[in-house]
């Protein structure tokens, strides 16, 4: 597996714990002299954008009647965003949310979204620590 090829000190705990996947390592590979803070910049960008999306979804969920297509669109964006840094757990929750959306299961969506938000928050915390 790829992590064993990396020097021990480069292991990212966040990855090992499954919050992030291989994509995160790809980002680390991209970092070089010309962009020495690349990973951190990307992560910052991600959280800024994803927070916005999360807020949009929150809002959309409040509405009656539920516009599932719109919800799905938002979640699609969020999922895409999560994939950019390799936010694995968050991505999975996004996927289940979309499944509930397809079935127009509002309850399911609400529950699922709570999980998405949780993963989002946890990841943010962990990465903030990582970059400290």
């Amino acid at each position: 597996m790829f992590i064993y090829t990396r020097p021990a000190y480069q292991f990212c705990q966040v990855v090992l714990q499954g919050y992030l996947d291989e994509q995160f390592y790809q980002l680390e590979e991209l970092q070089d002299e010309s962009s020495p803070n690349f990973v951190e910049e990307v992560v910052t960008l991600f959280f800024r954008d994803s927070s916005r999306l999360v807020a949009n979804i929150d809002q959309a969920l409040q509405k009656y009647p539920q516009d599932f297509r719109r919800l799905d669109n938002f979640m699609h964006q969020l999922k895409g965003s999560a994939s950019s840094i390799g936010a694995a757990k968050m991505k999975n929750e996004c996927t289940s949310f979309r499944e509930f959306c397809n079935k127009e299961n509002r309850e399911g969506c609400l529950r699922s979204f709570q999980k998405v938000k949780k993963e989002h928050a946890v990841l943010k915390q962990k990465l903030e620590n990582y970059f400290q």
Partner: protein
Amino acid sequence: MERPLFSARAEAFPAGLRVLVVDDDPTWLKILEKMLRKCSYEVTTCSLATDALSMLREQKDKFDIVISDVNMPDMDGFKLLEHVGLEMDLPVIMMSIDGETSRVMKGVQHGACDYLLKPVRMKELKNIWQHVYRKKMHELKEIQTHYNNEDINILRYGSEDLDDRNLTDGITNISSARKRKDVDYKEFGDQEFGDPSRLKKARVVWSVDLHQKFVNAVNQIGLDKVGPKKILDLMNVPGLTRENVASHLQKYRLYLSRLQKQSEDSTSGGNMPSDLINNDNVANFELTSSTNMQQCSEHTKHVGTSENLVPGIIADAHIGDIKKIVPVQGIESEKGLISDSPISQNFNNVPRLSALFSFKGMTPGIEEKAREPTTSKHQTLHDGAPRMQCMHYPGQGNCGMLDDYSYLSSSDQDHQVSFNLCSSSPVISATVTNEKDMKDLSEMKPVPTDQRNAHFAAIPQVACMTGSVSLQIKHGMVHSQDAGAICKLDGSPNTKGCSTEQIDNQECFPLTCEFSPKSEAELDSLPGDLHLCSIQKFGCFEDVGFGGAENFQDIISTPDTQVQNDWYISSELNNDYLYETVDYPLIDECLFA
């Protein structure tokens, strides 16, 4: 020969490839930019599709390739894709987190030359230059064939007088000319590929309007007195050259002379073996495209925004918007086409049909199979690839117009059957290219074929054909009520039945290509869909199949001389297609483009 100087960028190719990335996700935009920079590409990013489009429009030569996300707020990625393909003719790569087959297929249908799944890896981006290169190779090849044909035409018809033209005269000259051109363009190709933006395409689109002007001019001058210069002057179209008009005129003359010969033959009994011609026959020849009209429809940047399109056999692109079968209906004259032998075609799977039913591209498997001698009068299906049998039904009596059924055979593998269905106005020609070995066709009854004039030739008993059918409505209108031959792609091995039918039924010209199963529904839509037929447009469409958008674009804008040859220019997925550049002159003769 001295090689021209390159720009530094060209020399460094693929480094320095100018990429435009469009993605509304800022994180991805940043990552992609970094990745592409690491590939030594020149990157421009854009988060709005509309911005991207205006950027592209402003500076058409500024980019080599576009990478775009599928889901964007201001514009659907597929729409952007279509626009770019149509207007700028650049290769476009789509990206999405959604890897569902239907989405990918949609991307391909709209003309994407690739579809990447997010998260996108560096290694995937490293190779995107191939799409640019491939496109350039295609273009070069087209130019080459274009000039080949120009050469041929000039050699053959040095003067404007077409009387007593013996087509064989030029042939030896042609091949040497072609060889010369081959050499030239190979060098050209080597030199130029590195700097794609420098490649110029010089093409004339013989649109309906243009052709109409041409015809008007000819009629005004009088066909016997006409000459390219006079026509050119009368037409008064800026940018049109004497050469363009000259080659178009030749074709027009050929077409007219074929018409005339047709009527002569009918009175004199012609030189057609009687058993091959059913005089009372009216072949209804209707080619229906496959379900993948959707494919056609959508991938056709060409058709998608049909308003922009001139070449319109596919009319105001019903092809453009919907899955529909575009019927091309022709009329068989009493010359009758093939009376008793089925023409079976193996086609690559469904997606291959285009509006103009150019069934190009075979899976490698099919090709192999094609080369195997078949046992009977049919070609077995290969892996479910639809087989085309053509069957025609007795039509509505008169109008019998099937002019020429020209059967061009080459000694190589290619077997081309060309139908010229024309009345005084409409000329539909369907050319079927067969990759199959010719041996099966040896059973064919020999028919004095004036191949040069592309006149009727015998239809082989073992009409096993694989390859492409390109249908062109050359000129004028074809009315559905006249039509008859239904060409359906048959998904099930059925030839045998068909064969016997055909043999028994002298009336029937066996031309049935029936697409199953999806086409069933679409077949219903057939009768009404006259747009294809009822419009005086012509052009040559090639089924661009998967992502061959660029080809389509090329075809639309090709000059008439190379229309036929486009069929043989493979799209990306048709690289296996073995078209031997055999008889350009012959093909040329057959089809009035």
